[in-house]
């Protein structure tokens, strides 16, 4: 009986702790790209805040579940949206009425480089041969995606609008399972972040056919930038997944600035900067109007691809 009461007490304490802190809502699941960046950032930031940050993953609906959850909370800076790029396009994709325009950016962390990837033994020697094959067999080449609004899906729209090539898009649960589908031959091509595929590419298991950049990337200098295939891709660049910390619009500016200050200190911690470098994330460190302008530009690129569809 005593033990049972002790158990109950523990549970109450645990849930109680969760309530006293600032809540950080991570938009994607445990162990994913967003999770990997947010958890350490918050732990470096906590040292510069009065309280702790209680983190929770709330995946689902390409991140709409978490976005809606934070939006439904009061604009008091106590609930943070730890998000990826997805909400910037929700309205355009019909996923949700909310976008980042409904939130204030505390800190824009960084963005990533992505590339079109095939298995090492793929018959497609280069990006041009892939596009030729896709045009010859419209909707037949199997492209592993992470569902509508995800990274490979968006890049497929860019490719479609510039080249007219279409794919048979197969949705997977995560970028890791999508990559595995390419490795085991279930799919022929996918789009991967540099971080996710760099080691496999260096080991000769995967090949990047091109990068979504206008100049070659440092880590894989031999892979051609997509603009070398067709300069029309320039209209969408720079483009890549980005990550940021947000609060609901209408949060008291002084509260937001306090948060920005703490998160910036966490962000500037050398250990965190090293993590960003290890994960091939280009640091941004923007907040306020600068962050809004950056997201607006990003959104315009993505919208132009959609409208061309």
């Amino acid at each position, binding site marked *: 009986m005593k033990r049972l009461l002790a158990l109950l007490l523990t549970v109450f304490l645990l849930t109680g702790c969760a309530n006293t802190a600032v809540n950080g809502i991570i938009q994607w699941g*445990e162990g994913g790209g967003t999770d990997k960046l947010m958890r350490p950032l918050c732990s470096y930031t906590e040292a510069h805040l009065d309280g702790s940050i209680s983190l929770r993953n709330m995946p689902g609906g390409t991140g709409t579940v978490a976005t809606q959850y934070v939006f439904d909370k009061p604009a008091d800076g106590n609930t943070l949206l730890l998000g990826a790029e997805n909400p910037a396009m929700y309205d355009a994709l019909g996923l949700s009425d909310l976008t980042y325009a409904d939130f204030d950016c505390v800190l824009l962390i960084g963005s990533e480089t992505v590339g079109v990837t095939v298995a090492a033994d793929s018959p497609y020697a280069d990006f041009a041969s892939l596009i030729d094959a896709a045009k010859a067999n419209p909707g037949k080449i*199997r492209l592993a995606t992470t569902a509508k609004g995800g990274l490979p899906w968006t890049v497929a729209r860019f490719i479609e609008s510039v080249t007219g090539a279409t794919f048979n898009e*197969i*949705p997977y649960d995560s970028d890791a399972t999508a990559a595995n*589908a390419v490795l*085991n031959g279930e799919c022929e091509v996918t789009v991967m972040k540099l971080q996710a595929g760099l*080691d496999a590419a260096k080991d000769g298991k995967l090949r990047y056919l091109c990068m979504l950049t206008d100049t070659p990337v440092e880590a894989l200098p031999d892979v051609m930038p997509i603009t070398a295939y067709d300069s029309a891709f320039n209209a969408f660049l720079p483009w890549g997944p980005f990550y940021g910390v947000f609060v609901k619009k209408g949060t008291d500016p002084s509260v937001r600035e306090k948060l920005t200050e703490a998160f910036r200190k966490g962000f500037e911690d050398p250990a965190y900067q090293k993590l960003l470098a*290890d994960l091939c994330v280009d640091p941004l460190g923007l907040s306020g109007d600068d962050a809004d302008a950056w997201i607006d530009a990003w959104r315009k690129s993505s919208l132009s691809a959609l409208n061309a569809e």
Partner: protein
Amino acid sequence: MQEFLGVLQNIIRPEVLIFAALGTLLGVYVGAIPGLSGTMAVSLLVSLTYAWSEVPAISLIMGVFVGVVYGGSRSAILLNIPGAPAAVATGFDGYPLAQKGKAAQAMGLACIQSFIGTLLGIFALAFLTPQIAQISSVFRSVDFLLLGLLALLLVGSVSRGSLLKGLLGASIGLFLGCVGKPSQFSVNRFTLSLRYLDGGISFIVAMIGLFGAGEALYQLSVDYPAVKQEAPKRIVPPIKTILKHLPLTVSSALIGIFVGALPGAGGDMAALLGYDAAKRTVRKNETPFGEGAVEGLIAPETANNAAIGGALIPMLTLGIPGDAITAVLLGALSMHGVSHYSLMTARPNLFSLILAALVIASLFLLLFGLTGIRVFVKLLKIPKGILMPIILMLCIVGAYAINTNLYDVLLMVGFGFLGFTLKRFQYPVAPVVLGLILHELLESNAVRVIRLWGNPEMFSFLTPILFAALIALPIISRICGRKDRA
């Protein structure tokens, strides 16, 4: 040999010893509380361990992993509330055993089997990793779909009496699994315009409601006295029992290792499939399955712990987490500067550290798993009028603890009444949970298969094997079945 020395070197490190032991202790008790899942415990610990160095952090996490998978069985056996999803199958025969007054023996056996299962999983991880990774990485969507369908056949195993009632339960489960915004499509299904339901129905909320609250309500509605527990002479099962069931243990562990190694299928699926296989293959059981057969306890408890070693295999070789806990672990490792997809080749030291921590955790599992049982059994001596309301309260707290969301509590209460109604009219509850667990696996892979098979090449490649298997399987099982009866 060098690897072996590496493991040995790690085992004798005091920090590995201390933190793996601490993790196991935490895991066993966190696992026993419904609503506090292993994934939650590990993510909580992971954020604590950022500032730590790699060795204590990984030792602690491995300890929790091992402890939590066993811990979930305690509440499943005692109260028919699985402490964690991996313990759902444990309740099928564990709870009837407790109802027969053998709760202590059941928990002792569960502990020993978990220990053996963990060890066999470690063995596979240490020696068969390349081979198993090879097999699990070639598993395609159609294979996952078939695995899901195979698991769905479990309805036959877990619905006692009327199969029709079981099918109805499974249909309810599959239907409830449809609620929310599916990952492949951006539409809301059956959400009744409630934003809360956009994320779907939490499987853990459903489990606490159906098994925990449902059982408590049912117990309060029927009038029979509390079961008198046999005073356990010994909690550790006799070595004869363990040896007698060694073949079952090994086959369950193999199922656990393999299912654990498949991305997206973890300890819960391993335990369910292990239970099902036991029910199909064991012939000379003293008690029928579902009424307190020890075989029905041995199989899932071995399989779910063996799945730990299995789940680590794709994580270490391909960078693909085998289940939710390994997904958190993978994220944690990247924070400790480990980001190569193949940790096996990039970080051999880490591999031996993980192995060492698992070995220590499994040893401490014996210690912590076999102690405290007598105290737990005393729970059952509490009069029903007092115990059941406490369980109801525990269910409420557990449901609230998942996300500190009051809607979860309301949904749990709803599931409680569903569970109660089903029990009241003698419909089995387990198929509902089964449907809920399997829905995602079935639907996402079915969508992929339909899209893939639009491609004729894929179709022609898979058809012969598939159809041969589909035709051969019933014939083989028919022949084997006849031999058995003869």
